[in-house]
């Protein structure tokens, strides 16, 4: 069994990997959902758009469910504090996600324009709302979240839902929505042809630009006006987790401390720009598959940039900074982290293997002819 400190670090990385996996896989079908009402001008076109992700959205959604399960298992205190504190935000995500399974599966079962129109907008909500709220949540993590613990680690959240929607957090929401929509547009360009592909490329142009602007803006804002958090006491990474045992202060510019200490991490924000620009060029020169992976690298960059800035914090407390949750003190026991690591190492490669097989089987451009021929079985 690895030592506790190493396991804690590995799990910080693995949660990051799962978040990135979620954003790349479930992200592209959410992006497709967001774009659906705009790139599909009539029912047939919309069915083409939906069927690019039809066989895959269900498997992709499990990235989200497994990510949630992994946070529960590896960071139970984070799972408990964040989900209950962000109560209404989490419910909004949940209720938006309700529209996806039924939207995908039920939409084409009845041939009625109103029925189909309702589900088109349902898929839009299910695609656009979750990334927006996740971005807003990340924006709030940087500013600190008003929660505290009593002696028995019962957490109390003293903010409101509306306080989450502050300007910086909304900008972070724009970053994440633009990122996911951009990624969806690139995927759509890969899987469609003609008119729809052209509209998807235009959308990619817009959302790629928006992503870079918002990302740079959020970085600047963070630097100028959002103080960070610093642990002042000595950290013992091997200690039994106890979030009340440290002292933490707020300090201007502290979110950039890791970048100053390890300049190599600056590659992460650079990756965002490189990924987006490469994806734009590749998609427009017909190499759409490579464009998809370039866009995926941009996602690695965005999530990595945020993670590297926050480290070792996961969820700082604005109310009682000492109670902030970090990778050292809000984790599971060594045994659980170790079992979960084995489970991930065994099953993740298998998942990637059969997911790639599924994409290969269903590969190729989705066309109007395909939808017409499979009218009773396609979405």
């Amino acid at each position, binding site marked *: 069994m690895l030592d506790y400190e190493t396991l804690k670090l590995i799990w910080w990385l693995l949660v990051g990997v799962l978040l990135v996996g979620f954003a790349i896989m479930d992200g592209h079908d959410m992006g497709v959902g967001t774009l659906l009402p705009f790139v599909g001008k009539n029912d047939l076109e919309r069915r083409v758009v939906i069927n690019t992700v*039809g*066989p*895959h959205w*269900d*498997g992709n*959604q*499990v990235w989200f*469910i*497994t990510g*949630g*399960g*992994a946070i*529960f*298992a*590896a960071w*139970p*205190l984070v*799972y*408990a*504090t964040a*989900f*209950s504190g962000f*109560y*209404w935000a*989490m419910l909004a995500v*949940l209720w938006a*996600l*309700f529209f996806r*399974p*039924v939207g*995908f*599966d*039920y939409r084409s*079962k*009845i041939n009625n324009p109103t029925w189909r129109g309702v589900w088109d907008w349902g898929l839009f909500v299910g695609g656009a709302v979750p990334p927006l709220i996740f971005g807003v949540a990340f924006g709030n993590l940087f500013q600190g979240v008003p929660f505290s613990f009593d*002696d*028995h*680690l019962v*957490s109390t*959240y003293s903010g409101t839902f509306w306080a989450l929607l502050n300007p910086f957090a909304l900008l972070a929401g724009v970053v994440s929505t633009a990122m996911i929509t951009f990624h969806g547009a690139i995927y759509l360009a890969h899987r469609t042809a003609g008119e729809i592909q052209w509209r998807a490329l235009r959308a990619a142009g817009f959302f790629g630009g928006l992503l870079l602007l918002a990302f740079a803006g959020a970085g600047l804002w963070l630097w100028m006006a959002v103080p960070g958090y610093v642990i002042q006491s000595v950290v013992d990474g091997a200690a*039994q987790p*106890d979030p009340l045992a440290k002292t933490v202060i707020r300090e201007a510019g502290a979110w950039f401390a890791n970048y100053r200490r390890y300049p190599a991490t600056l590659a992460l924000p650079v990756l965002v720009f490189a990924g987006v620009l490469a994806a734009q060029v590749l998609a427009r020169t017909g190499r759409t598959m490579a464009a998809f992976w370039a866009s995926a690298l941009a996602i690695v960059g965005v999530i990595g940039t945020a993670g590297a800035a926050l480290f070792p914090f996961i969820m700082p407390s604005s109310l009682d900074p000492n109670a902030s949750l970090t990778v050292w003190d809000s984790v*599971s*026991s060594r045994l659980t982290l170790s*079992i*979960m690591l084995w489970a*991930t190492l065994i*099953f*993740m490669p298998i*998942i990637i293997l*059969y*997911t790639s097989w*599924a994409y290969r*089987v*269903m590969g190729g451009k989705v066309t109007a002819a395909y939808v017409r021929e*499979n*009218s*009773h*079985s*396609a979405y």
Partner: protein
Amino acid sequence: MVSEQLVDLSRLQFAATALYHFLFVPLTIGMVWMLVIMESVYVMTGKPLYKDMTRFWGKLFGINFALGVTTGITLEFQFGTNWAYYSHYVGDIFGAPLAIEGLMAFFLESTMIGLFFFGWDRLSRKQHLMVTLLMAVGTNLSALWILIANGWMQNPVGAEFSYVTMRMEMTDFWAVLFNPDAQAKFVHTVSAGYVTGAMFVLSISSWYLLKGRDVEFAKRSFGIAAAFGFASVCSVIVLGDESGYTVGEAQQTKLAAMEAMWETEPAPAPFNLIAIPNEAEMKNDFAIEIPWVMGIIGTRSLDKQIPGIRDIKLKNRERIVSGIEAVKALDVLRRNRDDAAAKKVFEEHKADLGFGLLLKKYVSDFSQITPAIIDKAMHDTVPRVAPMFWSFRLMVALGFAMLALFSLALWHSVKGDFADKRWLLRWALLSLPMPWLACEVGWFVAEYGRQPWTIYGVLPTHLSVSTLSVESLYGSLAGFVGFYTVLLVVEMFLMVKFARQGPGSLGTGRYANEAHA
């Protein structure tokens, strides 16, 4: 102190969303094997009828599956949103099976379901059958991990409390995995799902036969459902009995409550066929007893005693008194981790910590505890008897009614004359709601029967909730009721539409009610 109303509303929301989710899960678990059987026959014989059967029943399966997925996410979210202290307190153990469920089972199931629906023309016959099979394996593994998590709530093995981290921590993963409660629950629950799947196909096929349409299609479906259903209903009854027998205190308390056994009877104890339980006086006002039966079912012996409710409560009272010392010592240790005297007391009484915590429902300051309060907490340790007694009997009665139906269906299916037995077809049609009712009541017996605990003997329900406002709970509950009502209407509408239309909805040109694009 946590308000009663908050606890009640949190429980109501969890129960409502879990029961709702469980309308869709058993059908998925059972139908998926019926699809495997039908498609296997297709691959072996090459007869297109069996492919059509797989695709048509698969279509109904898909409509059901969509809502299973939708409502399943709610449950995963809800541990965090509404049961935050629970999530912190036992996440170290409880979170792992949930995460492994995702990695090992749900990914497989969800990826394969896409290929099941979209892959017919892109895969060879054998490849497609393999996809269907993997989908079934994924579905059932998923149930396994969820029930390992649930089994641990009933019988929390392989874990220990730590006062430094203020939570339960896993000490033995294999004990959690091979928890006898979890294994018994798994086989009983999936068998119940198989019965549900079989009943669904049996009833709808009977309806086609009563209408005299798509006769060949319906007859083959009926035959498969009758055989599969008979095997499953036998297994659900035998293995259900096995889960009653499983040792463990939570099960003992449940057993006493669902049998309305107030006293510890001399072995072998009699079985109360019917009784009118009197909660206040802890006795039955009226009972029809069958001698010996309970003792034999409950202990598999003639000489072992089964503890009655009065004795269980008295034993629990001692544990509460001992638990008070554990809670007091814990409070000292939380302020000073190195207090040696407190550590010693804590270690002595640690096993009863959960019982001490039961008192937090009534007092926050443990110096104000009176014998009357201890008595109140003692009475809380056994769930109310009448709901347990009657729901259990309803579940069992439904089980035996379905056994009768499937026995006759199989008998006439072997003889080959079921299509003319209109009484049998009508009976099968009318029995359609039975497995759902039995599943829901079974869930109630298992989970209500665990009260007042979320984790038996470890964490009381009223301490498990998130510190939310009552208004938030009313709001979210209203939202769930609204969303779920609309979803149910939409789902039922589609299900009825396609069931009525029948295999004609595939557009193959071989059936009645052909679909037009």
